[in-house]
Each structure stands twice: as C-alpha cells, then as structure tokens.
C-alpha cells in the first residue's frame, strides 16, 4: 500500500509571479500599529524581526524607503554594556540570536563602525564551552543554532580567530546523524533548519569538505513534495521557510539542481497573500515577516530577476558581504 504523502494542493487561482510591491507595502505597514496584538506579543524577537524586514527590503532594492537611524538607534538601545551582547528589544536580556541579528542589521546599513566590536567579540567568545559548543546566553542552553550565530557574527566582524574554531567544528560535526543531516545537539533528529545552521557554520569556517555532500544532499532533495514545496523533515507538511533552509543548504553544497526549481518557485509564488502582501508558510495561511523574508530570499537564490543576489550562508545581500570582504565557502558544482 502506498504511503499517503502529507502535502498541500495548489489551486489554480494562486499567484504565478512575484508580487514584490505588495510585499514592500506589507512590510512597511508592519509594526506601524504599535498596539497590534501580534506585533506586541512578538517583542521577544523584535531584533530578528527587524533583520528579516531589512534583508527583504535590501534584496528587493528598496532600502531607501526606510529610515536608517530608526534601526541603528534601536540596536543601540538593545546593547547590554555589561555582557557585550544584544537583546531582542529594550529591557530584555542579551542573547546570541539577537546579537547576530543586530550585527547583520549594522552590516546591511553599512554601520559596522558604530558597533562596539570588542564587546561583542567578548560576549560571543565567552559563550563557548570547552567541548566547542556554544550556549545561547549565560543560562546554558546548547544548540547548533548558537554555533552558527557565533561564527556568523564573528566572521561579519572579521574576528573569527577569537574563538576555538577547531573545537567548534568538532562539536558541530558531532551533531551529524546517520542520515547525513544535523540536529540541535549530538543525537538530535535531523532537521532542515538545523542543517542550514550546521552547513552554514561549515561554510563560514571553510570546512564543508568535512561532510559527505552527496549523502546530505540526497536527504535535502528528498524534502521536495509533489506540490513543489519543501518540508523540514520527512513526513511533514511543506513550509516556505524550509524553502530557504533547504535550498540555501543545497546551494552551499553545490547541489541546488537536485530539486525542481520551477516547482519550488511555483509553491513559493502560491504562498503569497495577494490581498495584504507577504508570504505565509503555506498557500492560504496568514502571512508574516519571517516567511516573507525566506520566500523572497529563496526566490533570489533561484535567480528571480527583480531581486539582488543573496548569499546562501548569511542570508544577506551578496553585495553587503562583498563590501565587507566576508567570504564563505560554497562547494563546487
């Protein structure tokens, strides 16, 4: 008996092109109502939200539509002098996730010289444990996401040598599973989001040669479902954010052609909200800035003509990284 595939059906009336102007409107409107319930309840990730918005606008060549000062002032307010890290929003605690977002925002806005680089480096380096892993903050949660945040932040600041890279690589490799994928910790299940973090980590550190790209690439290309969308693990529904995590990982591994790009494009287009703008996880669901960035970023990697090229490792415009002289490894096709 055939297995039932968990998937969605894309109806005929879904969008077939990129509705870029609508997405810009959606993002510029997002957060203007500071009493909006969803907006307020997500303040614990505000810094990342601002990075999602900014990267989308930059990729769409619309950075001139926002006030740069608004962003840099926000970053300053979130800096914690004592630790050297950044919080998600003023009053909250510093965390490596938001420290990376803050640094990414400064890079995109060409304001790296404003950053207290030595403090940030001290914060990141202080989160590394003897086994090479990183905690997210002083409370000790360990996750390969934080390994990625650490090396991405330091690489953007040209300070990668401030940590024990060799140990950090060892830890990430210890999180690789029999199926070629990676989880959040040793023995944790393979998951496309964490695979992106680990492959991205190896790309930043120039150690992609340490993994069997065919093996992992196969697991990743199996994520494409008949709808064209990608899921994050076997037997799960497709989701636009996995379009990014899977396609970016495949791109770093030099195996983007192992899935059907046309079908993926079709799925991402179908996940746009034609009324409000923005992308949702699946066709017909409510849009949000997170899925909007990853929809746009994935389309950029797939070569969408109205978008500027995005870097698969950092999820930032390539021209920003070129300007900073930041390099990341991509395996030869």
């Amino acid at each position, binding site marked *: 008996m055939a297995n039932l595939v968990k998937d969605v059906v894309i109806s005929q009336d879904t969008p077939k092109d990129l509705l870029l102007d609508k997405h810009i409107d959606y993002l510029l409107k997002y957060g203007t109502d500071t009493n909006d*319930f969803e907006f307020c309840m997500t303040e614990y990730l505000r810094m990342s939200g601002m990075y999602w918005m900014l990267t989308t606008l930059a990729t769409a060549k619309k950075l001139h539509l926002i006030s740069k000062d608004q962003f840099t002032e926000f970053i300053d307010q979130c800096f914690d002098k004592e630790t050297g890290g950044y919080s998600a929003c003023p009053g909250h605690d510093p965390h490596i996730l938001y420290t990376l977002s803050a640094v990414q925002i400064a890079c995109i806005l060409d304001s790296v010289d404003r950053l207290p680089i030595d403090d940030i480096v001290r914060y990141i380096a202080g989160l590394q444990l003897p086994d090479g892993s990183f905690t997210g*903050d002083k409370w000790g*949660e360990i996750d390969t996401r934080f390994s990625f945040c650490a090396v991405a932040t330091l690489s953007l600041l040209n300070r990668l040598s401030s940590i024990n890279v060799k140990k950090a690589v060892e830890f990430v490799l210890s999180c690789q599973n*029999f199926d070629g994928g990676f989880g959040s910790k040793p023995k944790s*299940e393979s998951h496309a989001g964490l695979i992106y973090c680990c492959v991205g980590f190896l790309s930043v550190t120039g150690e992609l*040669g340490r*993994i069997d790209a065919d093996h992992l690439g196969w697991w990743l290309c*199996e994520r494409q479902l008949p709808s064209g969308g990608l899921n994050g693990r076997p037997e799960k529904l497709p989701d636009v954010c996995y379009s990014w995590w899977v396609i970016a990982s495949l791109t770093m591994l030099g195996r983007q052609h192992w899935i*059907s790009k046309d*079908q993926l494009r079709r799925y991402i287009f179908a996940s746009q909200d034609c009324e409000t703008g923005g992308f949702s996880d699946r066709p017909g669901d409510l849009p949000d800035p997170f899925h909007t960035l990853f929809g746009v970023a994935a389309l950029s990697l797939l070569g969408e003509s109205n978008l500027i090229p995005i870097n698969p490792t950092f999820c930032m415009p390539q021209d920003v990284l070129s300007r900073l002289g930041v390099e990341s490894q991509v395996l030869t096709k």
Partner: protein
Amino acid sequence: MKVVSDPFCNLCGVTQVQDVLHFFLDCAFTTDVLKEHIEEEMAKTYDHYNEQAVMEYLGEGLKDLKRLTRLLEMHGQVKTDKSAAVKEKEKKQKDAKLKIYREGMAQIFEKRKSGIKDWETMRCVGDVLSMNPDVYTLWNIRKEILLHMVEEKTIDEPVKVGEDELRLTEICLKINPKSYGAWHHRCWIIEHFPELDLKRELILCNKYLKLDARNFHCWDYRRFITSRLGLSPEEELSYTMQKIEEDFSNYSSWHYRISEDGGKWTTVNSIKESPLWVSDLNSNSSSEYNIKVAILNEVENVCLKADNDFVWFRKPQFDPEVSPKLKALLVEQLETCNQLLELEPESKWPLLTSVVFMKAIDTTQFREEIIRRLRCLMKYDKYRSSYYSDILSKFLIEEEFKSNELPTGSFSLKNLGLTSFYYTQYFARFELIDLSHNKLKRTLTKLEFAVNCTTLILDDNDLTSLQNIPFLPQVISLSVADNRLKTADEILNCIDKLPSLQKINVARNPFVEDDAGKQDFVKKLKTLKPTLEIIVD
C-alpha cells in the same frame, strides 16, 4: 460544550483544540467540514498528533458540537470571511489580553530593577509566561529568583517548588509545544532540583510523544532524562536497522590535509582541506622528499621520489566493506525489492533501495542493472532527476577508476552521459583527458585539478558558457567543438586561464555557424594570440 479535564491536557493541547472548535463554530461550518478542519489544524500545530488520542479526549465535546450545528441548521456552507461581529469580539479579547501582558511586563521589569526577588514576582512572571511562553527574559528572571532563594536558603520544600516549575512549563508547552524557553527551563529545573522524580518525567515524555511523535524537543528532553537516569538509549530502543543503514550508506568520506612543510605547499582551490596539494620543488634538493600527510586524524609518513615524479596518491576505496553476514541479508532484501518491482515496476523506493543494495553486494555483477534502475528513477522521480544522473555519473566514474590500476598518461570518460565529475583529484595524473559526448556543462570548475593536462577534449557537452573553466596552466590543446557557445567572447574571455594554449577547436558552435562569425572570431583571437592554431570547422 463540555470541558475535558484530564491531568495531561496541558501537554496534549486539548484546550487548544477547543479553541479551534470555537473558532470554527464562529465560522459556521457543518460538522463534516468542521472535523476536516480540526484535523487540518491539528496536523499543522502538532506534527504527528495521534488523531485517536485527541478525539478520545475531545469525545463529548465533539458530540455537543454536532448537536449544536444541527440545531443551527448550518449545512454545506463554505468558509467565508469572519463576520464583523466575530472580528469585533476577537479584537476585544485581544486588546484585553494585551493590556494584561503589558501591565504584567511593566510590573515585572519594575520589580527586577528594584531587586525584588520574591514569590509575588514569581507569580507575576508565571502569569505572563502562561500567556506568552516565548518571552525568554521571563524564564531568566525565574531562574535568577530561584537561585537567589536557594542561596538565601528560603526554599523549604524543594520538591514542591520544583514540581510547580515543571507544571508551569507544562502549561506553557500547551500553548507552544515547541517553546525553546519552556523546554530549556524544564531541563534547568531538573538539574537544579535533584530531588525531583525523573521516572515521572519519562512517563510524561511517553504520554506527550504519543500525541506528537515528531516533537524533536520532546525527544531531546527524553534523551536528557534517560542520560540522567543512566539509561542508554540502546537499552530502550532497537537501533538495529539504523545501524545496518549506517554500515552501507555512510561511505567514509576522505580528504587530505598535508601538514605544512616549510610553507611551500598550496592547494589548488585555496581551501584548507583539499584533495590535491601541490608544491614547487627546490632545484638544488635531493631526489627524495619526506612529508607528513594527515588524513582526518591519521598521520602517515610519505616519501616522494623522483622515479614516481614526486607524486603520491592515496589508493581510492570506492566500495565499503560488507561482512558476509550483512551481504546475505542484503541479498535477501534485494529479492524483496525485486518482487515489489515485479508488481510495480515504476515504484521509486524499491528501485532506489535496490540500487543501494546492489552497490553494496557486487557492483560488477549488477553494473548494468544499477545503471538501468538509476535511469528509470530519472524518469519516474522527475523532481530529483539531476540527483540520479549525478549519482549515476559518480558510479560510472568509480567503475572506470576501478576497472584497472589508475591509468597514467591519457584518460577517457567519453560518451558516458556524465552530468557531474567526481574524484577529479585523480585528473592531476593525466596529460590527455577526453570528456567528449557527455553533459558536463554544470561542472567545469572541477577541472581545476587537471594541473598536468596538456590536451583537454570537451566536445559535445551542451556547453553554453566557458565562464567557469578554471586556470589550467599546462593545456596546449583545447577542443570544445559541437557545443552551444553563442558568442566569441566565451573563448576570448577564458584565454588568460590557458597560458600554454597553442591549439583550439571551436567547430560547430552557434557563434561560428556562418563565415562572418568565423572570420570575426579568428581575427579577434589572433590579435590576442597570434601563433594560435584555430579550428573553426
């Protein structure tokens, strides 16, 4: 509606299901549509939720709902936009919730600023967290206060305090089963309150995994608990199949890292770990060099000698070791695949699995069948056809390298339908490389290892561009006839990468289709390289 009260409802999200029910009731659905949507919602929220278990919990609630919908005589209505009244009601609810959230947060931050670390603050923090469990700072504040209380020795009943904390995380996981903050707090509590009963945690994990078998946070937590209990996962679970899988699918990837020997060594592609390293030789040195080669963590002493052209290669190992016992098992499994394929010849998984088995059993015996089945897969699993064609290319190249001792001098991989290169580090050995009649347009970059190649033949490869051709210092003769190069620039722009070039064949490409194109090309190229022999037809 009947409220389902179950001690575990916090963990299975039953109240959330009820929210969903209410929502759909507002949307005026028929019962059947309703049930369908609940299932859809549940599938979205809970990855592998156990429908039966959830429906059991729902039980009476669903019956009530059926009665209600019948009373309201709502049949066959499709989903419409929410009515203004519903929107207004929701807005009011949200505004009220937001007010509580904001006031709570303000109060907590005020107390934190004043250094107040008491149970009243804990209560406030708990209330806000049960609304919004992802506010990580609030979990930090709880930990700060608890640490403070431990230090001040004001905790009289640690078990009760610990259990209350666990209960709070349960409430929060009900709202968001994937809340990183809540899961980590649970681990932190277990670590800081050793009095707590770990066996109970294991039972809770089982219960929770029954409802959502794919929640990786819960699996991680389960590993955390079992390791604290001193149980190895192996004691509980049978990983037999996984291990067999590991045996044959985890081909050991190997790469070279040569310890820097006076800093003379460089890699061809400037990455730290490269399959090929080269160095200039000192003219006044001896006929022998001793170097250290580190492959992963194994260090080997290697002597480079003049009579071997100072070249050292590690012998390629393509086939993983398979024990006779495993081989017998694989033969059996292959037979099962073949039986399935007799019933459904186009079935992807038996095709793919059988290819893996045949590769592990005997590549020589099954060579033709492996090729045939991979070609079938290219046809039947269209989205991944490039994967299969690349894997087929890898297999064919391995077979070429295996068929005899690694050849020297000239090497041909022509007419194999290759779409990708593998093991190109061995190309460093060859002077003549013939890759004609393949489909290698995507992979020219990998030719970078052909550092000793003097004659390179790339005829009939669907090439549309030579942009990715790498620096090839020794190539004297290049042939790119019968491709799809559209402009003379494709050649002109890569001439710098071929400093030794004396002869080039570009026949039967679109840009030299007519006489004008040919003349124009020859003229331009002669300007750059006057002595070059150019073949245009």
